């Protein structure tokens, strides 16, 4: 088997003495899409933030290919290879969409403007936002902003893309326009670690699902088996909380059938 792109080895992280990550290990291989789910506060965001050095790990190691990146003093070169998109989009409000897109490739990667601009236009077109190139971020809808944020991260050609609940702040009707872009990226072979609460999307996009609980990975599996028959009771309960609507519907149907029988 090939060497993994990312290797997380038994990392620990505490905030103010309370453990948030308590020994997490994880390998991600090239082209693999790993979806991380779990209850609020279990440490999903912290895990992603540790991977690109926004948080420092207390213990353990993180390797990007053959480079030890945990505890590095200067992360900026590593971060050029690890893209990250957050729930809050975080477009730069004082720059037009195109300038948002050009900043990283031109300043961090020192690529010439013309080459990046052409590529940025092409990517904008692919996500349906070509006509917004000269718009200011505040004139865009949430879904449009998040698609721009994805393009901004992709223009760096990262080896690994980290997505932290990128649809959590969106109105429901805008969720799919963003998730479709992610599914596109997955089909193009992008290596990703995705935190999400959208279970149908998780099942569709994941090669592997990790279920986190109180700072550890409690269960891990292929999406088909994980979502159909989770092995741990905790994961079963967690998934149940998302199927509330459909169980209720089922309950009503059973009731109706009962009534019919009577």
């Amino acid at each position: 088997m090939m060497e993994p792109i990312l290797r997380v080895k038994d990392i620990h992280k505490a905030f103010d003495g309370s453990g948030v990550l308590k020994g997490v290990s994880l390998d991600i291989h090239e082209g693999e899409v790993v979806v991380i789910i779990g209850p609020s506060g279990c440490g999903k965001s912290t895990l992603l933030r540790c991977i690109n050095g926004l948080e420092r790990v207390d213990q353990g190691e993180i390797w990007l290919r053959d480079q030890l990146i945990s505890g590095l003093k200067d992360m900026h070169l590593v971060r050029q290879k690890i893209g990250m998109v957050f729930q809050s989009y975080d477009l730069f409000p004082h720059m037009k969409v195109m300038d948002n897109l050009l900043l990283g490739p031109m300043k961090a990667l020192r690529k010439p403007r013309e080459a990046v601009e052409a590529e940025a236009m092409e990517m904008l077109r692919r996500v349906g936002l070509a006509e917004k190139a000269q718009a200011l971020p505040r004139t865009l809808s949430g879904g449009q902003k998040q698609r721009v944020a994805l393009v901004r991260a992709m223009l760096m050609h990262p080896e690994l893309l980290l997505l932290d609940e990128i649809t959590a702040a969106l109105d429901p009707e805008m969720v799919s326009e963003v998730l479709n872009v992610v599914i596109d990226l997955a089909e193009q072979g992008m290596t990703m670690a995705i935190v999400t609460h959208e279970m149908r999307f998780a099942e569709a996009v994941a090669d592997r699902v990790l279920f986190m609980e109180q700072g550890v990975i409690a269960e891990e599996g292929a999406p088909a088996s994980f979502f159909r028959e989770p092995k741990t009771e905790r994961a079963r309960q967690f998934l149940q909380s998302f199927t509330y609507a459909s169980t209720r519907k089922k309950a009503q149907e059973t009731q109706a059938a009962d009534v019919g029988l009577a």
Partner: protein
Amino acid sequence: MDWGFIGSHVMDFVAGAWVTLRFGLYGVGCSLVLGLLCCLARYFRVPVLRSVAHGYIELARNTPLLVQLFFLYAGLPRVGVRLSAEACAVIGLTFLGGAYMSEAFRSGLESVEKSQREAGECLGLTRAQNIRYVLLPQALATAAPALFANVIFLIKETSMFSVLAMMDLMNVADTLRTSGGRTVEVLFMLVVAYLALLLPVSLAATFTERRLRYAGFGNQHSV
């Protein structure tokens, strides 16, 4: 009002205004640089430097400029450091102004969402690039009114330069008043001269603030 007297001394005031303006602007320029450095040391929690910056700011803001100038001009020679009046003026004004500018920059930087800094970091920008392209433009939009207020404050504080025997506006006026006794005319010209220097700054401040509000970025981070 003796217009003849005013006419014959206009050039004295022009010369005084030039001293006030020149050394005022040197001080303002150096204050902006010092203030920005102190503010960044504190914002990025640079070890040691952030404490030094903090201590300096408290010291500078809680002592009068007059005392600072006396220290430079009369105190330092006692330990063998002899500076010209002009050097004392610029250093003194910078010492005072750096502290105020730092606080103005800081209010601006702190109004920029923390996630903006992280977004810049996630793009692999160096810290300097992140400051230059992401943080500072947004911080300046918020800090502009305070920065302009500081410029006006500092140029007014140059009136203290007369204790250094520099022929700034204040000293020109004092000299004329005590020698000729035309207090009303002298004060009239003094007011006019300061207004001529500071009114353009005020107008520039108003204009800039309006432009920034129109541009509509800064701390109003819309989701």
